[in-house]
C-alpha cells in the first residue's frame, strides 16, 4: 500500500513538473542574460538581473504595450460589467414577449467562431475611423464578451427571490433605484466573478487585436510580444522578460483570487 502511494505521488510530481515546469523555466530565464542562457538553458540564475525588467519596460516598448493593455482591459471590463448587469437584470426580472428570444439569441452567440465577425469588423472600424484606435478595440471587446457575461449574470439574478424587489418597490423605490441599490449590491459576488474572468480573457486576447491594431503606439501586450519576438528572434533572455511582464498581472490575480477565478472560469465553461 505504501509502495503504491509513493508511486502515485511520484507520477503526480512528474505531471506537476510537466504542467508548471515551463513557467518556472521562463521565470528563471527572465532574470538571466541571453549570453548566460546560451551557455546553459536550464541553469539556475547565478546573478539575478532584475534590471532586465527595467530595460524591457523603458527600452523595448513594453511600457506602451502594458499601458495600452491596461487601458483597454479596464475600460472594457467596466463597461461590460455595467451594460451586462443591466441587460441580465432586465432579462431575469421582467416578463415581456421578446424576453426569451433575446436571451436565446445572445446565448447562441457564445459559440460563434470569431471569423464570422472579424473581417466585417475590420471594414466597419475602418469606415468609422475606429481602426487602429484603442476605443474601437475596447468596444469590440465589450461586444465579444457581452453574451457570456449576460448569461452568467442572468443565471444569478434569476435565483434572487422576486419578493425582495417587489418589497423595495412598495417602499417607494423606482425601477432604477431597485437595480442600483438592491440588485447590484446583492450581485456583487457574481459580478466580481465575471470581472475576473473577463479581465483574464481580454488580457490574453490576440485575434481581434492583431486584425484591428497595426500602429506601434496602439499595440496591446500580446501584439507587442509577437512584434518583439519577430524582431529579436535570438534574444531569448529579453523575450522571456517580456513574457513575464505579460504573465505577472494574471499570476497576481490568481494568487489573490484563485478560488473566485477558478469558479469564474469553470462557470464560464459550463455555460
Amino acid at each position: 500500500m505504501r509502495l503504491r502511494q509513493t508511486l502515485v505521488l511520484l507520477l503526480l510530481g512528474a505531471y506537476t513538473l510537466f504542467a508548471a515546469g515551463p513557467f518556472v523555466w521562463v521565470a528563471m530565464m527572465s532574470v538571466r542574460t541571453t549570453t548566460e542562457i546560451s551557455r546553459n538553458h536550464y541553469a539556475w540564475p547565478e546573478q539575478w538581473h532584475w534590471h532586465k525588467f527595467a530595460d524591457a519596460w523603458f527600452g523595448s516598448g513594453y511600457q506602451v504595450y502594458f499601458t495600452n493593455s491596461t487601458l483597454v482591459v479596464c475600460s472594457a471590463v467596466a463597461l461590460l460589467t455595467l451594460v451586462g448587469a443591466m441587460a441580465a437584470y432586465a432579462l431575469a426580472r421582467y416578463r415581456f414577449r421578446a424576453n426569451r428570444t433575446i436571451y436565446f439569441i445572445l446565448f447562441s452567440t457564445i459559440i460563434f467562431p470569431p471569423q464570422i465577425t472579424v473581417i466585417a469588423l475590420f471594414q466597419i472600424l475602418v469606415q468609422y475611423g475606429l481602426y487602429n484606435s484603442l476605443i474601437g478595440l475596447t468596444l469590440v471587446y465589450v461586444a465579444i464578451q457581452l453574451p457570456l457575461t449576460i448569461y452568467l449574470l442572468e443565471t444569478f439574478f434569476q435565483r434572487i427571490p422576486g419578493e425582495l424587489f417587489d418589497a423595495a418597490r412598495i417602499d417607494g423605490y423606482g425601477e432604477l433605484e431597485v437595480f442600483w441599490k438592491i440588485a447590484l449590491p446583492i450581485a456583487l459576488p457574481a459580478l466580481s466573478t465575471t470581472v475576473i474572468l473577463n479581465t483574464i480573457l481580454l488580457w490574453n486576447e490576440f485575434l481581434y487585436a492583431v486584425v484591428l491594431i497595426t500602429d506601434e503606439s496602439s499595440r496591446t501586450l500580446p501584439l507587442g510580444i509577437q512584434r518583439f519576438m519577430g524582431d529579436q528572434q535570438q534574444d531569448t533572455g529579453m523575450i522571456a522578460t517580456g513574457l513575464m511582464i505579460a504573465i505577472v498581472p494574471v499570476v497576481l490575480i490568481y494568487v489573490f483570487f484563485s478560488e473566485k477565478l477558478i469558479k469564474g472560469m469553470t462557470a464560464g465553461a459550463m455555460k
Partner: protein
Amino acid sequence: MHEARALRTPWRAVTLFLLPALTLYVAFTAYPVVKTLWNSLHVVLPNRHEFVGLANFVELAKDDIFWRAVRNTLIWACTSPLFEVSIALVLALALYAKVPGARFFRIAWFTPVLMSYVVVGIIWAWIYNYDWGAVNVALRWLGLQDWARPWLGTPATALPALILVTSWMWAGFNMVVLLAALHSLPSEVIEAAELDNCGWWGKLVHVIVPLTKGTLLNLLVLSFIGKMKIFDLVWITTKGGPLWSTETVSTYVYKRAFEWSTFDLGYPSTIASVWFAIVIASVLLLSWLLRQREKLEF
C-alpha cells in the same frame, strides 16, 4: 408574487436596461455577421465590390489548402478533447482520493490555462527547439539522438506537437471542473462501490464515469468548440507551416484576408461563413447526441 411581477411591464425601465447591450450587440456582432454573409457573395476590394453569386463557394470547393485546413482543424478538435478530458479525469480522481499536497497540485496544474496562447506558443516553440529545447535535450540524454528533430519544423510532427500543447494547457482546467463534479456526488455511492470491492478500474467504468457523464460530455463539447476556433497558438508558432501541415481554418481565413495581397475580403468571408455553418451544425449535432446539460453553480 408572480401576479405582482406580471402585473405590468415597466417598458421604460426595460428599454433603458436593455438598450446599451442591444446597441453594442447589433453594431459589433449582428451587423458584422450579416455583413460577412453578404461579403461571401461578392468580390470585396478596398474601393469597390461586385456581386459574384456563388462563385466564391465554387472556388472554395476546389481549394485544396482549405480542405487541408479543415482536415487539420477537425483532427485537432476530435483528438485534443479526448486527451484533455481523460488526463483531467485521472488527475481529478487522484485529488479526490485526497493525496497529500492536493491543494498545491490543484493550483500548480491550473496555471497553464492562465497564460495567453501567445505566451504559451513562444514557450513551447522553445521547448521544441532543435538545439536546446527540453524535448530534444531529454531525448539526447536518454541516448535517443536519432529521435531528436525540429518538432515544429517537420511536417509529420508539427500538428501532433501543437495538439499536445493544447492538451497541456487545458488538462488542469478540465480537472478542476471534474473535481467539482466529483465533490458534488453523494459520497455513499462511491463508498458502496468501495465495499463491493470491484477494483479501481471497475469503479471508474461502472460508477464514476456514469455519474459524471453530464460534466464529461459538457467538457468534451466545450473543448471541441475551442479547438474549432484555434488561431493564436498556430499563428505564433508555425503560421500554418511547414507545408500547410498545421494550417487551420482560422489561420487560413486570416491569411486570405490580410496576408495574401489579393485585397479581396469576399473570398475569406466565404470561408468564414461556411465554417460558421459547420461549427453551428456540429455543436447542434453534438448537443443533440449528448443531450444532457448540467449547469455549474456559482
